[in-house]
């Protein structure tokens, strides 16, 4: 028995595939030793389990299948390896116009003419039922009905009622699927907005954009598959905070998380090279970093290392793609006529809508624009018109722009907030002003393009815009329908985590709403 000379740095599970981090020159012995011990208990146990499992299966499966299973060591699964989408999609990409704070459905879309005669009367108890209200209005002694301050008119071939607050969007109704019967489980912003975006009120789940980039992949490797744009505030509006967990990847590999583009200055920071650094030098630098990261990945096997490598590469490619994206001087005069003067000002909702069209043209899978401030608890008459003015023309321009360029056909645009608002006034009620509290039982949103059934109004609420009386659409069903339009079966788009096949629509049964699909 001739044993080789003992080597203190010999890693027992290293089968000589090539150099390891321990072979890099110039690393002090003590550091190498420390490195070697980085193998944690959890990692060791996890890998032992897998090794035994594979050994058992090896004889059953044969070499071909085993090779396929090896994908686990080469980074996160690609959509090609997931073999998605499940069926031919109607939409390739999505633009989500998220009205954070919850727009008031009965002041904008859900016309209730009967309320005018009920001004300052009490909301019947039978309508409210046993509902628990928020702490903001639960203590009110009265729940006086506040009819909408604004006039409504019929628009489009279907004669859809739209408020005068939306003079531009009302011209679009023949292209819209207006859903008046959305409903949610949460009555406060954070859980409700999480439910809309991640399918769960508890933080830590993957967002819809992350699911789409995981399931469908990128259409342009020079840009992220999932881009988030935040919009400038409307003066006087009550802006609820946003956090990256709304566009996070949750249990999915971080590669799929949304990338926020800044609304002012460079969309992505630190992309431009410092003076004197050439692109070639930058390339060499990244190659070097990637080589070290690749070795670490081989040793430790943490998929997050892979995500880091991907991010370096993406940043390098975005050095070219993002300046071209942000340079809007190539837009024809007609663009500026369509979007209006706000589009010239970086960071406005309008500017972001134009940016979203440019991202859609470039193959970004999911663009989400957040517009905050819709949480109008008081002074609805003062604030709501400002919010509508800041968004109405932009929504119209975006849908029209996509349509004229032939992109609306395979781009799904969605507009909506996280819940609705109450028909009763929060705080004082006068003929000229009122406030509205959170209302999860019904709210209005719309979809356009991407295989949604255009020119219809789906669902109906009661005379108080309080309860749904026909065709309810839970947030889960809404999300399942959106996935369906993108060619994904919400039951089959899963990721194993914590012993569950996690999915966007969660464990409570969800259904695709066929009435929303063209």
């Amino acid at each position, binding site marked *: 028995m001739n044993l080789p000379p003992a080597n203190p740095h010999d890693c027992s599970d290293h089968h000589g595939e090539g150099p390891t981090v321990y072979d890099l020159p110039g690393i002090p012995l003590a550091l190498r030793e420390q490195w070697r011990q980085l193998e944690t208990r959890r990692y060791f146990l996890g890998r032992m389990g897998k090794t035994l499992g594979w050994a058992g299966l090896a004889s*059953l499966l044969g070499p071909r299948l085993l090779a396929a299973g090896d994908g686990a060591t080469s980074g996160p699964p690609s959509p*090609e390896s997931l*073999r*998605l*989408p*499940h*069926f*031919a*999609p109607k939409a390739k990409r999505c633009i989500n116009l998220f009205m954070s704070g919850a727009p008031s459905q009965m002041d904008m879309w859900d016309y209730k003419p009967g309320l005018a005669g009920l001004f300052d009367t009490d909301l019947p108890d039978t309508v409210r039922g046993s509902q628990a209200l928020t702490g903001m209005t639960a203590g009110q002694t009265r729940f006086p009905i506040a009819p909408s301050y604004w006039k409504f008119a019929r628009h489009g071939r279907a004669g859809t009622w739209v408020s005068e607050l939306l*003079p*531009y969007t*009302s*011209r679009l109704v023949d292209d819209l699927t207006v859903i008046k019967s959305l409903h949610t489980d949460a009555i406060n912003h954070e859980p409700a907005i999480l439910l809309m975006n991640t399918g769960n009120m508890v933080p830590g789940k993957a967002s819809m954009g992350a699911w789409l980039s995981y399931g469908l992949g990128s*259409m*342009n*490797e*020079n840009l992220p598959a999932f881009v988030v744009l935040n919009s400038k505030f409307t003066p006087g509006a009550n802006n609820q905070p946003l956090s990256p967990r709304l566009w996070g990847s949750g249990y999915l590999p971080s590669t799929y998380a949304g990338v926020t583009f800044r609304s002012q200055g460079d969309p992505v920071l630190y992309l431009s090279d410092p003076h004197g650094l050439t692109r070639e030098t930058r390339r060499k630098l990244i190659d070097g970093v990637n080589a070290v990261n690749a070795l670490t990945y081989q040793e430790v096997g943490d998929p997050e290392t892979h995500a880091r490598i991907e991010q370096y590469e993406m940043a390098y490619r975005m050095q070219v793609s993002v300046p071209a994206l942000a340079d809007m001087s190539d837009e*024809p005069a*007609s663009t500026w*006529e*369509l979007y209006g003067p706000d589009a010239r000002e970086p960071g406005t909702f309008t500017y972001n809508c134009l940016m979203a069209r440019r991202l859609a043209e*470039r*193959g970004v899978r999911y663009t989400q624009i957040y517009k905050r401030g819709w949480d109008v608890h008081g002074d609805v008459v003062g604030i709501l018109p400002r919010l509508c003015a800041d968004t109405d023309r932009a929504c*119209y*321009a975006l849908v*029209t722009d996509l*349509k*004229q*360029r*032939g992109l609306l*056909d395979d781009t799904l645009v969605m507009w909506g907030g996280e819940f609705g608002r109450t028909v009763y006034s929060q705080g004082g009620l006068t003929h000229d002003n009122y406030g509205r509290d959170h209302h999860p039982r019904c709210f209005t949103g719309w979809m356009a393009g991407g295989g949604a059934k255009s020119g219809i109004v789906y669902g109906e609420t009661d005379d108080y815009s309080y309860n749904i009386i026909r065709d309810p659409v839970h947030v889960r069903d809404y999300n399942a329908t959106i996935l369906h339009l993108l*060619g994904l079966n919400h039951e089959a788009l899963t990721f194993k985590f914590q012993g569950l096949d996690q999915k966007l629509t969660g464990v409570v*049964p969800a259904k695709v709403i*066929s009435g929303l699909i063209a």
Partner: protein
Amino acid sequence: MAATAPTAAGHRARPGSVPFLWRLAVGGSAIGLVLAAARGVQLDGVAHGGSWRIFGRLHPVLVHFPIVLLLAVPVLELAGRWRPALREAAGFLLGCALPCAVVAVWAGLILARTDGHDGALLTTHLQGGAAVAIGTALTWWVRPWSRFVYALLLILTVGTLMWAAHNGGSLTHGADYLTEPLPPMLKQALHIKEAPAPETYGADTVFGAAVRPVLEKNCFSCHGPEKQKGDYRMDTFAALLAGGKSGVPAIVPGDILHSELLRRLSLDVTDEKVMPPKRKPRPTPAEVALLHWWIKQGASRTLQVSAVTNAPPEVLALLAGPVVAPAPEGEAPYQPRVGDYSALRDEIARLEKTLGIRLVQVSQHSGDGLLLRTRGAEARFGDAELAQLTRVAPFIVEAELDGTRITDAGLAALKPFSNLTRLHLEHTALTGTTLGVLKELPKLTYLNLCATRVTDDQLSALTSSAGLQQLYLFGSQVTSGGVSGLKARLPNTQIGPIELTKDPAP
């Protein structure tokens, strides 16, 4: 290991020399394993699936090992009277049979759980199998200790084995498989009952014309002649009313509140007890209404269809026509859009590599075709590159050629794209002189010529593209006059706006 100690050889030569405690431990744990399996594996008639299924499916193979081994033991014991060496072999085979029997029991239980088997015969078979395994353990244990008890146990175990094996055969082949070919006289002598002839019902009765077909469509696959999950069988009238192992009557004529069948039918689809179970097709609302109405009317077997006067309209509709299973919504049989291109995998990979393009599957069905994606390689994708795609062209259903360097001359290379439905040519230098080639694309429904230099004159080449549904010309040099001319000739084509109204303000 080359030098085996002589003592070891001597040790092996003595039969039954395994220490008592050791035998007790092994026998006891074998029994424990069997009992644990019988108690721990829940059989509820629901197919649970899972990766253990493969082990379960091996049960019909595995079960033959203990059978053969156990049958050989008495033969060897008898033959051992004349050739004592065979008696030693009997002990060895008995030892082999023990783990095999335990494994076979486990596999059987897993098979029953993962594939959702249930019923009286299965339970009997299962008890028999477990008894054999336990009997084998006891037999093996007492063999060196008492010849008499050993012989008794062996006979019992082998007898049980025969019975359990017969039940297993009945499960797979049907209960009358063995006796069916016997001459009728012998059958009578042996008191073997003929399988009951299927009951027939007049097509003019409500039950025969509507109720039974509804039950047949929705229920018989689990509660019919083949399977009786939960010991409930619905294909004979008496059993249909009686109910299953819960003891609750399935149908109480005239009493819709106490008819278990209706209760289970109307549970929420997420309820564990709902029937038909989750993921199985639901009866239509009309069918449910029919069952309600029929039971409320007294669940009559003889009520004539012609005698029915006042029933809900959906029930009358069902009674009027034969029960036709409606085609499941949205599940039209899959129609591949393109042929099989699996032989071109290498070619596709090569093209992706050399041209920097992507040829992505539209969906996981390869029959949905490929999507040509040039994003990222637009600047180096021109006429020559398009011409290289000839072999894969018939499998491409959508081509994203927008922003590429393709020119009028290169469009001729689109001819072999016989399955192309969507074509993006926006933001290219096309002037449209060769648009006539698009006539060769019979399936083209979407054409995007935005931001090209196409003019009115060239549009006339599209006049024979009758299948075209969407045409986009925004930012091209086409005028509104050109568009209206084209609209007249292509009435079914939706043509996008070529310019904005000057003032979009409402």
